[in-house]
């Protein structure tokens, strides 16, 4: 890894790491009576680990000039491995909190293990740890291939990748010791937020520098989605996290916004995090990996452009549907509801475009679990965006809001769409990146697929039932006009669904563990014991793709 850096880049890496270490030292000293001190120590440890890695390889020979004839894939490889570690952590903690709702004693009387602290560990690990690393890793892969240009330097991709993971570590460790600004999906405090801005701007500049070197005159649509993800997340992150710290020696800060303005800013951020982190970025992944894996160009390139602008400009106004029946002015609620309904058009255009691309390649979907991951992801994307638009309608929201229906909706999107498209893309990339003929075991990919699909369906069905039961019980009145059920009655009614949900989550976690094993064995280059299906081998190699694609089109 460090061997790929030039002498100058190794020196720059040392300077950056020493600076980071000094910042950590200042945080540890200034915040010694505060949780900020513990985070200072964590930053120092990260900087020291980086310094040791650079120093150990400092006098290694300079990288071979022939490297410039190859794509720079080290950051993608490292990113995929880190993403798989985060997904196991995130799913494990997620399943833990699911069992915590079944049996509240599973906190073991420890403050850090309470639901309120573990839940953000789960959401941050899966969204930012798993999703974010997968997006960074695949974006490096896709931008180089679609631009036919190598990344402009060797250091900044590693800075982006490791810097981003330092942010994730600060976030997750902070929740356990009680550091949070209590904004959903934006919990990390001011110092972690400032660090993420530095990393994110570097990421944007790196992406633009690579695109500036491109050979292809037209920028392929996947890059538009990845760029929208990077630009908008920067904008959302900065505005929603505007805050003033108590002092430079304190972790706590106070938001610039208050009252209903704060709620609106938070949900403008929150819903656009769904839109641009969990949708636009992963659509970028889909628009590259699905056509390549299927060996067919996207069904309609024009439709992909219309969807792009629709998603980019409609999503921006949809956030207020999270605040129906609140102090937010009625017309702003209606605005959010209307835009959420309009969003169905570009969302279904993308889902349909993906599924129609598979016309003529359905036999591959049958035989190849990797492509099937992507196909099911597109189906769940279509289902979830329909459900989302429906739930944004005010009277529907009066039944669904604050119930488990919302949790079911989120997980149909997160497990069914985001995780499925990511696993599909990772299974496609791993053999390409490590120059293997195929994954270690296509049968284990099959096993992962069925566990993931079953887990998602069990989870979502349980939460739909639970949510609607809960919502109906909350609004049932008896003859005298008083509520028929107490809150405790609804909790007891949800208990069986909570067990089902936790079991569904467990199946999903087991699938991910199988995926880790399979990826690890592929990286190590262990030949598979299972007989290989002929179609798998053909589909695994990117070189074989154009031939297959040409064969299909000549028959049309």
């Amino acid at each position, binding site marked *: 890894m460090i061997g790929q850096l030039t002498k100058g880049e190794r020196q720059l890496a040392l300077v950056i790491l020493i600076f980071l270490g000094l910042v950590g030292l200042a945080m540890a000293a200034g915040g010694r009576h505060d949780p900020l001190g513990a985070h200072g120590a964590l930053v120092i440890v990260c900087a020291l680990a980086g310094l040791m890695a650079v120093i150990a390889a400092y006098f290694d020979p300079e990288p071979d000039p022939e490297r410039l004839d190859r794509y720079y894939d080290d950051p993608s490889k490292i990113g995929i491995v880190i993403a798989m570690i985060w997904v196991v952590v995130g799913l494990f903690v997620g399943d833990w909190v699911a069992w915590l709702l079944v049996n509240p004693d599973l906190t073991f009387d420890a403050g850090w293990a309470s639901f309120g602290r573990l839940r953000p560990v789960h959401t941050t690990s899966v969204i930012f740890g798993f999703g974010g690393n997968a997006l960074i890793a695949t974006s490096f892969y896709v931008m180089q291939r679609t631009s*036919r*240009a190598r990344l402009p330097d060797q250091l900044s991709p590693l800075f982006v990748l490791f810097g981003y993971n330092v942010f994730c570590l600060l976030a997750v460790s902070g929740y356990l010791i009680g550091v949070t600004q209590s904004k959903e999906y934006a919990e990390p405090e001011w110092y972690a937020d400032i660090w993420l801005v530095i990393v994110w701007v570097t990421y944007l500049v790196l992406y633009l520098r690579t695109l500036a070197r491109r050979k*292809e005159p037209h920028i392929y649509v996947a890059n538009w989605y990845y760029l929208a993800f990077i630009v908008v997340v920067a904008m959302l992150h900065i505005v929603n996290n505007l805050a003033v710290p108590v002092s430079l020696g304190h972790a706590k800060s106070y938001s610039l916004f208050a009252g209903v303005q704060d709620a609106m800013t938070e949900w403008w951020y929150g819903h656009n995090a769904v839109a641009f982190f969990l949708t636009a970025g992963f659509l970028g992944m889909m628009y590259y990996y699905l056509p390549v894996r299927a060996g067919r160009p996207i069904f309609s390139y024009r439709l992909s452009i*219309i969807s792009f602008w629709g998603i980019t400009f409609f999503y921006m106004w949809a956030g207020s549907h999270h605040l129906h029946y609140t102090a937010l002015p009625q017309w702003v609620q209606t605005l959010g509801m209307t835009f959420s309904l309009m969003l169905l058009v570009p969302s279904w255009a993308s889902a349909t475009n993906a599924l129609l691309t598979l016309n003529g390649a359905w036999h591959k979907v049958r035989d190849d679990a990797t492509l099937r991951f992507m196909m099911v992801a597109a189906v769940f994307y279509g289902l979830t965006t329909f459900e989302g638009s429906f739930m944004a309608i005010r009277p529907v929201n009066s039944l669904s809001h604050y119930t488990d229906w919302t949790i079911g909706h989120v997980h149909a999107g997160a497990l069914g769409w985001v995780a499925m498209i990511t696993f599909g893309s990772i299974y496609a990339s791993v053999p390409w990146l490590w120059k293997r003929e195929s994954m270690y075991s296509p049968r284990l990919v099959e096993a992962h697929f069925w566990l993931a699909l079953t887990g998602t369906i069990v989870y979502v069905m349980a939460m739909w039932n639970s949510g609607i039961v809960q919502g109906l019980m909350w609004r049932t009145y008896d003859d005298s006009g008083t509520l028929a059920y107490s809150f405790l009655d609804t909790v007891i009614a949800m208990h069986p669904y909570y067990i089902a949900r936790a079991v569904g989550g467990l199946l999903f976690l087991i699938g991910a563990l199988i995926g880790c094993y399979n990826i690890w064995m592929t990286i190590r280059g262990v030949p598979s014991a299972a007989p290989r299906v002929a179609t798998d081998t053909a589909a695994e190699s*990117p070189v074989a793709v154009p031939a297959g694609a040409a064969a299909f089109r000549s028959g049309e």
Partner: protein
Amino acid sequence: MTIYHDTLVWLAKSAGLFYLMGLSLIVLIYTYWPSNKKRFNEAAETIFQDEDKPCR
């Protein structure tokens, strides 16, 4: 300067409406402009490459 609620509502209902209608129109014209067809079809094919190495 105080921005009044009514001013914002007026702005959203007038300028906001025409901004989005205009934007949709521009996107549709760009997408369906006849001379762009060739470029888009070529773009859709660019992801299928014979060799996995950069041009620069």
